[in-house]
């Protein structure tokens, strides 16, 4: 069965069709959640909450073609929630200050993305990983395009700073 038929069935309340749909996108959804929350257990919590909230509100999906955008938006909100509900909350200033001994260690890309402030992180993920245009990111995040531009540019700058002097794939990458 093609994806569009699955989406139509899911909107009518077919839980098996909805499960199939999530399975099709599960790798991408999990990795996005992981980039966001930075660990396996929280990423799995985000997936569970996303499945729960999305199926509870599937009838609100007006345009079947925007299923991925719609579910990604829900996942982003769930990731915000899980992160906020975490008991050992790390403040932004703490996130950006690393203990001396950590500075010399290799920081890889996924770890560095996890250190970005929320809004910059999401813009970077949607732009690079989802290959979305500025317009699509603006629609997904319900934010003006110019604001997305600012998030992207600040996010890139901060990533460059975090990865500066470190290497991945044996090469130095310039963002």
């Amino acid at each position: 069965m093609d994806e569009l038929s699955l989406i139509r069935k899911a909107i009518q309340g077919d839980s098996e069709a909805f499960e199939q749909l999530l399975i099709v996108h599960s790798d991408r959804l999990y990795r996005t959640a992981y980039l966001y929350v930075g660990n396996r257990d929280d990423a799995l919590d985000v997936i569970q909450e996303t499945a729960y909230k999305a199926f509870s509100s599937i009838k609100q999906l007006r345009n079947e073609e925007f299923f991925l955008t719609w579910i990604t938006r829900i996942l982003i909100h769930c990731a915000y929630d899980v992160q906020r509900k975490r008991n050992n909350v790390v403040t932004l200033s703490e996130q950006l200050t690393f203990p001396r001994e950590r500075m010399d260690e290799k920081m890889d890309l996924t770890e560095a993305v996890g250190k970005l402030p929320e809004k910059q992180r999401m813009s970077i993920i949607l732009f690079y990983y989802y290959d979305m245009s500025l317009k699509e990111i603006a629609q997904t995040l319900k934010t003006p395009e110019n604001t997305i531009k600012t998030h992207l540019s600040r996010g890139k700058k901060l990533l460059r700073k975090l990865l500066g002097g470190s290497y991945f794939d044996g090469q130095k990458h310039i963002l």
Partner: protein
Amino acid sequence: MDKNTFSNKVNEVDVPKEEVLRSIKIGINRATEEKRPKKKKPILKTWIMTAAAAGILMCSSFIDPTISRVLADAPIIGGLYVNFNDMVGRSLEKQNLVKELNQTYTSNGVDVALTSAYYDGYLIGITFDVKGILQEEDGYYYALYELFNGDPLADETKELTTLTKTKDGYTGHIRIVYPYKDLPKNDTIPVSFEEIGMNKGNWQFDVPVQQNPIEEYLFENKESTNPEGDVVFKVESVITGKASTAIIYSVTYPKGKLDSFNGMLNVDSNTKLPMGGRSDGKIDQITNGDKTTIVRKLVIPDLLKNTTLTVWPSDVETHSPVEPIKIDIP
């Protein structure tokens, strides 16, 4: 960086396929369970209950115009915790160990009514309803609250929770990890909401909680060190409630060496442990001469029985690896 390099790097993140599928299934099942229509109750009975509830509210309002409280002993029956991501709450609800509350407070035109509470081991859960005009932020209704009057000795006192829209208002949930070492049988938890749905105000509650029976397993000689021998890791005890388990452990080090020690305990088990929901917090700090001991507790949101755990503090925190310790929970 080009998009391919970024995607290739992200695609290196391992996907635990089986667990992801399980999370999807659980999420969908929760939504399905909630959608299932409930049996209709006879109208007369509902009317009597509503009248009785209004009567109680009116009577208690005469006693104190701003705050009315009734703590009922009757356990809650029904799917209150279906709305919230709280496995402990759901398990206790099934065991009839969630107690009904009826405390209300009004501030700035917004009514908050606490509806239930549980207290299991180190975990406390509170549910509440909100009525009033709320505003969204990022597509969500948030409530900001402070616990334990912001006690600086408590590990975490200020948090945000999101509210879910209901037929006649909003509903929300707070989960608290008891921040002190000694667990009282009964306690009153100060909870104060500071902002609800963009409305600033002051909604104050003292929430009475009664602890579910606990089992405490004390360990002797469960300790290990790092190769240098200056960091000592000790498992002191395990406390189990009716739906949660806490491991009490300590790390002792030369004063100044690990002053930023911040958990978190690694755990391996011979049985499957629940995904997520763990909490690791400081409950005590003792300085003895040139040594500092940090006592912490790791709370697992599941009742562990007949389980062998292997635990060790994170290498990043202790600077050099500390030998893992095996503990048996009968």
